[in-house]
């Protein structure tokens, strides 16, 4: 049977947060197109992760090399080329993280394979897969098909739930650990560091009022703060753009490269709803979005949609609150 190679994302010999979602995608895809799944994990000491991954019932290959302690996509992409030459998978898939994208690009350029990125879902038209992803910040979706015998995919984190190894009883797959011989990769990972600056505990707040670029000016953060003060145990969150401009410290940032939160209420003010932001707050119980653009992607995941200019709407909201609840 033809194969799909699922290359899981690992950081410092641990699976990345969205790592096992890729197995779920591979299973659904393999079901539709009658493929075998081969899982690959890589690191400097990867037996534990390989065994964990094998619980899903698929064969796992662990690639080991000292250069893979920290993420080293340049090295790993080069290391899987011989593997692809060897087992000739029909599809190779990665998570759509920055590292996954880098490896996918490297393979597609070196092996002349079609590459389709940020896949959210797929369909079969005859025996040809059609992959769906979003375009223009979620305002449109685009369907793409590969044109080569072998192709590379990156799967959007959050699009598929993590696979559940206990759902059906499965026999663990076989685990093979392969030591990689030296590879000509000039990138040298030196260290990893975690941001220690901590000014707000977003994860512990019941209510998060978040500011995006739509607030227009730093002064308007005061509007957001005032609304937040209406609620007990509330905090101010932000999109990346706000933190990049240092309008708020990094600890307020919500999204893939910030905090993942699930408060009782998340109010997105002037936030467009990029995938990177949504992935950090879509688990919120109630989502309210205020935006001037009726096409904004944030509305597609919102419970309550308010098409208004926040600079006039938030003061109105404060005023009404004073009239009605004080």
């Amino acid at each position, binding site marked *: 049977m033809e194969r799909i190679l699922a290359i899981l994302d690992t950081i410092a010999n641990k699976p990345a947060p969205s790592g096992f979602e890729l197995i779920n995608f591979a299973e659904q895809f393999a079901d539709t197109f009658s493929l075998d799944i081969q899982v690959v994990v890589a690191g400097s000491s990867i037996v534990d992760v390989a065994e964990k991954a094998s619980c899903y019932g698929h064969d796992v290959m662990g690639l080991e090399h000292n250069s893979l302690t920290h993420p080293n996509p340049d090295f790993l992409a080069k290391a899987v080329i011989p593997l692809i030459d060897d087992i000739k998978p029909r599809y190779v898939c990665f998570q759509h993280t920055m590292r996954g*994208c880098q490896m996918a690009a490297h393979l597609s350029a070196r092996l002349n394979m079609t590459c389709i990125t940020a896949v959210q879902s797929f369909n079969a038209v005859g025996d040809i897969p059609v992959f769906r992803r979003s375009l223009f910040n979620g305002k449109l979706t685009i369907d793409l098909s590969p044109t080569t015998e072998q192709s590379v995919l990156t799967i959007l984190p959050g699009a598929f739930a993590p696979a559940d190894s206990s759902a059906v009883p499965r026999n663990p797959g076989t685990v093979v650990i392969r030591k990689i011989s030296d590879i000509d990769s000039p990138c040298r990972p030196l260290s*990893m560091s975690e941001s220690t600056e901590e000014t707000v505990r977003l994860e512990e707040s019941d209510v998060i009022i978040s500011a995006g670029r739509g607030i227009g000016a730093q002064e308007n953060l005061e509007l957001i703060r005032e609304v937040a003060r209406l609620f007990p145990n509330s905090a101010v969150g932000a999109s*990346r753009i706000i933190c990049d401009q240092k309008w708020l410290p990094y600890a307020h940032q919500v999204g893939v490269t910030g905090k993942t939160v699930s408060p009782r*209420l998340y109010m997105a003010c002037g936030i467009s709803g990029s995938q990177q932001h949504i992935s950090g707050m879509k688990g919120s119980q109630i989502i309210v979005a205020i935006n001037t653009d009726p096409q904004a992607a944030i509305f597609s995941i919102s419970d309550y949609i*308010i098409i208004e200019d926040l600079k006039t709407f938030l003061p109105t909201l404060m005023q*009404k609150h004073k009239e009605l609840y004080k």
Partner: protein
Amino acid sequence: METGCRRRGPDDTSMKILVCVKQVQDTESPIEIANGGQWINEEGHIAFRMNRYDEFALEEAVLIRESLGDVIVDTISVGQQRSGSTLKKSLEKGAANGIHILLETTGYCPPSLTAALIADYARDKSYDIILCGVMAEDDMQCQVGPLIAARLGFPCAVSVVKEAISPDRKTITVECELEGGINETIALPMPCLLTIQSGINRPRYPSLSNVLRAKDQKLLTIQANVGPLSLKPEQLVSISYPEKGTKGLIITGTAEQKAEQLLTILHEQSLI
């Protein structure tokens, strides 16, 4: 000799940086499907501008020039006639030369094509560093940078939030952003390619002298030569509007009425 092409002698320590800048439609512009579901309507009310991540990449190149001195910063863009205005903007922001790879076709442009065209241009120009944005805001492929690197055999680091060039100008040490506040430090030899993440710097506004210079300066325009590239890119099937989320309630009325309704809802949920 072709413009921009320069072979260096052993004592030549000057540096050349190429910044890839993409013109994108402003994400707030209304977007409507056209061409029978094959692309969007680009006429009329759509505003075009430089991809924001590329502004950070360009600023970083200019900062390197300001700290090292003898550095040439060029910008390159693949696209239709209108991309010229984004290259002009890059001159206003401090680039020395703007290179326009003119690709007249409209519609979906696969990253492999863009990357092949840029790599072909850059191959014999001895750039020390190529900078890209971490992604294009319109198609979010995160591919063009690492594709160019693979085609040129350059080492590559992505999502860079800090960089430092060694005194001998042979290596560059970068901090790459992973997820959730973790950064990784990587050293790589030059020539290399980096993709730049937002927040690495604060892109400047154009200075008056650069605006005046840019006005008179010609771009180097090269017709894209797609024929010999033998690429097999993904094929567009169709474009559609996303399925409307079924759960969302649009709150209607005047602003006052909307505010009242929202407060009522929040009250009912015992949030206030």
